[in-house]
Every structure is written in C-alpha cells, then in structure tokens.
C-alpha cells in the first residue's frame, strides 16, 4: 500500500497546477463568477474554458484518438482536485465532457462524432442535460417528453427539469419517448437538440439557498432532423443509465477535496472566534465535533481511494459507487450542520442577504447539503442498490 503519487502523476499535477496558476486569474474564481446573473460571469467562465480547451486541459480523460490525454482515473481525480483547490469555477462543459462525449464515442455515428466531439473538447460548445422531468425523477424511465417522427423531422413536446446552463447551452442531450407503446424502459431515445431551436423556453428554478442555477425547459413542438438520435433508436434509457450510475459515483471522489477546504474554513473560524468568552476551538464539544467531521471527510476520501485502487487495477466501477454516495451525503450534511453550530446566530443569513458570516457561506452550505441525499439518485435508491445488487437481498 501507499498513498503516494508516481513521478508521472506528480508531473501531471504540477503541469496542470502551473497552468492554473498562470491562467486562473482572481476575476475568474468561483466566488466571482458563480452567480451567472452577474454581468460578464458567463462570458468569463466560457472564456476560461476555451483557454483550457485550447491548451488541452479539457477532456483529459478522453482517449488520445479523440483528442484527449487518455488520463488514468487517478490523473482524472488529480485534475478535479486541482480544479477545486485552485478555486476554479465549475466547468460549464461538464455535461459535454463527461456525459455526451463518452456516449458519442460509444454509440455515436461517425458523422456525429466528427461534428460534436471537437467543439466539446475545445470548450466551444456547451451541452444541456435534459433527463429528469417533473414526474420522472427517481423513476427516470417514467419520463413523458415525447418525440414523434413527422417526415424527416422529430417533433418534441414535453418538459424537463433540474438541468443547468439551458439558457446558454448550444446543444441538449434530451431523453424522449419515441415508442409510446413499448414497455417504459424500451421506448426512449437519446435526442440531440439545438437549444436555440424555436419552441424551446427556458426558465430558472430558485433553490432553497436563494440561488438560481437549475432550469426548467419546455419543449413545445421543437423540430430536429431525423438523424439527431444518439445511439440506437428506443435504447436511450440503457445508454443513459449505464453511464449515469457509475460515473456519478466516481464523480464524488474529488468532492472530498472540496470538503477538506470547507472543513479548513470551519477550523480557522473555530480557532479565531470566541463565544461567551471562550475560544470555540477550546470548547470540548466543538473540538470533538471538528474532529468527527475531519474524520468523516478523510474517511470518505480513503474509502473512495480504496475503490479507486481497484479501478486502477482494471476492475471497472460498479455498484460500490452507491457506497460513495452514502459517504458523500454523510460528510456533507455533517459539515453543513457543524458550520451552523460554529457560526451560531451570525451564520444564519443567506448569501447576498446583507451582512452575514462569510457572506452566508455557512448557512448556504447547510442548505446546500440538504440536497445531497437527493441528487444523483436518492439515498433510498443507493441503499436499495447496496442491499439488492451488492448484498444480494431479494427484491420486494
């Protein structure tokens, strides 16, 4: 066993770190550009990503034959960790890079790959992910958006929710029902939709935190060419689902880095603040709570590194990604609760709401962490997966 990086991994990290140091100027950092309603925020993020793309720092995981770096999983984790550490904004290209790109490579036609892969890799085109619907969340295959063939065009009607960047996106990867008579998992196709097409209306969903990052998208008779189907007709659900499950689990790996950073904020707060005359970090229950939270974040990281070792040895990600999501939620909600315990009344504001502790970062983290048991497959679903597919307990 060892927790060390190899020389080539260190070199990879240093190279990317150096690139970020040079290119990620303060005005591009997360705090500055997170809120897309701020003028210039979108453009700043896009400009940064195009620079990443031009210098080969998008799609590092993609195989070399498609223009990527063919990075190992560990390098991908290093890459994500460095992004987080540097304070870079979340990538607007991530749906293209992590979902659409791999699907194109697996099941896309020659023309589709030719048309779409390079713009994703260069950070030139943004993709929107149109999966969930108001009545199809956990039960994604119950989706009702439908696409009907009319001559040489598909006509799409329906509504999607919980995707992001819809307003700005160039393309949408949209699941739609193409065979209403088939069993629900078998009549769905993966459609490529130009997001500027007539008939598409985008609105924002306001979150509990007050932020507005997610969209509702209405498709009202949107027409797309017949060939804009990704993968075999009526097999969209299988394609989408296989990628979603595992990838989203592995995606939690670098989250630990984000939580480490947030934990450090909490520690610094506790070390430099007093309540009722006593330094917070000297109160026994605060010490215990900070240690507990530290262990929780580290254990999330370590448990994931153990599975990462398996992947690096050639076992592909499988159901154990459900464990990762369980740890993820536990670590995140624990941090959110601890933040408010530490911050006390002064932390009870929301971001942007007048003077609040660290601009609302603490309460925001608390509220944001409430969503962690829901996103990307609810905790209930993860637990079922563990019980049925790993432990082999019978389905009800």
């Amino acid at each position, binding site marked *: 066993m060892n927790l060390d990086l190899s020389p080539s991994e260190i070199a990879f990290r240093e190279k990317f770190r150096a690139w970020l140091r040079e290119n990620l100027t303060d005005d591009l950092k997360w705090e500055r550009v997170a809120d897309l309603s701020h003028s210039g925020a979108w453009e700043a993020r896009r400009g940064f990503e195009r620079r990443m793309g031009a210098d080969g720092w998008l799609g590092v995981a993609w195989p070399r034959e498609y223009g990527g770096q063919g990075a190992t999983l560990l390098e991908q984790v290093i890459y994500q960790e460095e992004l987080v550490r540097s304070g870079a904004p979340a990538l607007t290209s991530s749906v293209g890079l992590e979902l659409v790109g791999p699907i194109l490579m697996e099941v896309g036609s020659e023309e589709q790959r030719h048309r779409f892969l390079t713009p994703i890799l260069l950070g030139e085109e943004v993709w929107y992910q149109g999966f969930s619907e108001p009545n199809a969340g956990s039960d994604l295959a119950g989706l009702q958006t439908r696409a009907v063939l009319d001559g040489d065009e598909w006509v799409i009607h329906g509504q999607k929710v919980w995707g992001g960047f819809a307003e700005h996106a160039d393309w949408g990867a949209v699941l739609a029902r193409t065979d209403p008579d088939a069993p629900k998992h078998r009549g769905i196709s993966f459609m490529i939709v130009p997001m500027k097409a007539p008939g598409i209306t985008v609105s924002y969903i*306001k979150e509990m935190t007050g932020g507005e990052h997610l969209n509702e998208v209405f498709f009202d008779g949107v027409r797309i060419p017949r060939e804009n189907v990704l993968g075999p007709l009526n097999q969209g659900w299988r394609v989408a689902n296989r990628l979603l499950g595992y990838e989203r689990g592995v995606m939690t790996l670098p989250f630990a880095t984000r939580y480490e950073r947030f934990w450090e904020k909490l520690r610094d707060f506790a070390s430099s603040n007093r309540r*009722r005359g006593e330094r917070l970090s000297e109160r026994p229950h605060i010490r215990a709570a900070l240690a507990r939270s530290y262990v929780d974040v580290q254990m999330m990281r370590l448990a994931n590194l153990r599975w990462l070792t398996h992947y690096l040895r050639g076992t592909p990600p499988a159901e154990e990604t459900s464990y990762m999501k369980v740890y993820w939620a536990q670590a995140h909600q624990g941090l959110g609760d601890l933040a408010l315990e530490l911050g006390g009344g002064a932390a009870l504001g*929301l971001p942007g709401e007048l003077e*609040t502790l660290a601009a609302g970062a603490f309460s925001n983290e608390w509220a944001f962490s409430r*969503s962690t048991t*829901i996103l990307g497959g609810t905790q209930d679903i993860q637990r079922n997966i563990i019980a049925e597919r790993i432990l082999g307990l019978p389905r009800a």
Partner: protein
Amino acid sequence: MELELNEEQGLLQSGLRQLLEGACELRRVRRHSYDGDGRDPELWKELAEGGWTASGVPETLDGGGLGFEEAAIVALESGRSLLHQPLIETLLAARALQRAGCKAPLSEIAHDGASATLAVLELSRDFAPDPELPRARSTQAGWELSGEHFGVPFGPLAQRCLVEAELESGEAGLLWVSTDQTGVGWREVGAMDRTVRRYALTLEAVEVPGECGAGAGDALGELPDEWRVLLAAQTQGACARLLEMTVDYAKKREQFGRPIGANQAVKVRLALAAAAVERMLAAVYHAALKIEQGASDRGRAAAMAKLETASPGAEVATQGIHVHGALGYTWEQDVQLFAKRIKTNEILLGSDADCLERVARTIL
C-alpha cells in the same frame, strides 16, 4: 395528572389556529416576508382585535391575562402558521414588564395594540463574540440609554423594544423604547429565515421616561428560559405542519407507479419524524407547566424542551426536504420555509451542548 391541554385551552388553540389559517396562509407570509418589506400591519391588527397581542398582559391591566401554558399554545400556533409577526416576543415582553412592575408599557400593549420585540444579552451572544450590555444613565426624566444589541428579531418591524441594559448601580435593567425614536438605529443583518428578520440595534443617548424602565431583577432572569420554551413550542408547531405536508406529499407523489409513501424506507423516515414530533409536544407541555408553576426545576425543563426540539427538529426538517425530493430543495416548496425557522430556532438561545450542560448541572 394531566399532561394535555384542557378543554378551555383546546378552544383557545383552535380559535387562534382558525384565525391564522384564514389570515396568515403561506402565500401571505411569503408576500410580506420575502417579497415585501416584512411589515403586515393588517395582520397585527387582526391579532390585536382577537385579543392575542395583549394576551400576556394581566387582566387587571386590561390584557388577556393568559398564563404560560397558554403562551406556549400561542407559540405552537405561531410555528404552525410560520407567523411573521412579533407575537411571542410581545407576549414575553409583557410578562417581563409585569414582573418588573412597568405599568406604562403594559398599557401600550393592552390599549394601543403595540407590538414589541426584545433585545437581551443572552440572544446578543449568539450573534456577536463578546457583546456588552448597553448602559442606562439616570436622568431627571428617567434614563439615557446607549450601546448595542445584536440579532434582535423583527427590530423596527415591531413598534417597541424591551432592552436589557446595565444601570449605573451595576444592576441589570429593562427599558422600553420605541423602535423609531431618536437615537435608535437598526441595521438589518442576514436572516436565512426571512419570516423573522434580524437586526443589530444601536442606541445613542436614547431617552427613556421613568415609567418605562426598571431594575430587572427576576423579571430578566426568567426571560431566557421562557423564550427557550416558546422557541421550542414554535419549532414543534412548525415540525408538525412540515410533517403533515410531507406525509401528504408522500401519499400523492408517484414514482415507479405507486405513491412514494408506499416505500418502507419512506415510512421509516416519516414514522421516526412523527415519533420525534409527538415527543416534542410532551416536552413543551412539561416545560410550560413547570414555568407556569414557578417550579424549582423549570430551568431544566426549559433546557429539555429546547433539546427535544433543537436537533430533532432539524432532523425532521431534513427528512421533510428529503422526502420531497428535488422539489423539496426549491424555493417554491413550502417545506424549506419551515426548515429555515426550525433550524434558526435550533441555533439560538443555547446549543445542544449548552442545554445538556444546563441539565447536567441540576442532576450531577
């Protein structure tokens, strides 16, 4: 042995609930608290006409003369309705004023329908590292008051504020100021729960007439425990409503061709939440009774009520959000409004660790 509302108290509760269900639906709360300036004088007027705003003033001074058990009922309903008015604060102020023997302010609450908030050190400490009490210098006409308080609920949205201050004698005092009088400054600070906005208060040579203040003595000593119990009651009411909303949702929302509430995992979540909510009510009744009786263990009972509602309340709220799925995380869904009130009440006036130590001191 009776650990339940009596018939009269039951009527009182249903009366207030009816009023609030009519006058204070959540759309109105949102309109005034989130989209508006926080003021809602019509609702206060309705509450005053119903006798609720003066219910803490003794009958001999033309108030409702309600005891503390009834105050807890008011607080339960204020939580259930997510009331965005300083009703429990006015009740607490009236009780403290009565104990301090300040009759003029009580008359304002009873006769003018004045609303009141409270600025006390115990709460200031939740918002500032080492707050100092404002100082009250005696003058010919009464007092001159200067200093700061933090985290005052409602602030200028209430008409009066009962301020804890240090008198020249070194004794603690309670002084009654108008929230808009000269020298009184309010600075709004962020509040996750916008239905109870929070303010920092600055007092610069504020003049207080003689009859509007007094040495606090016991009047003040009782206040934090009473407030803790009313916050606990409010949390119970909020949790009960949030749970009802969540159960309704779990019955209606379908996934995989059946209501999500048919899943045993959802049942476990909601059953445990319900068990917590039921226990909260017993804790609130118990503490209200102990305070009403002036029992020697009332402080412990108050800490227990806070403990039983604080993190269990936050857990109920978290489950409510979870069961609502992605929708529960949106601004439009009402569970989050309740979650924010519940979480705020958890944080204020004594963390779990503080309350456990309060209990420990009485039993170890």
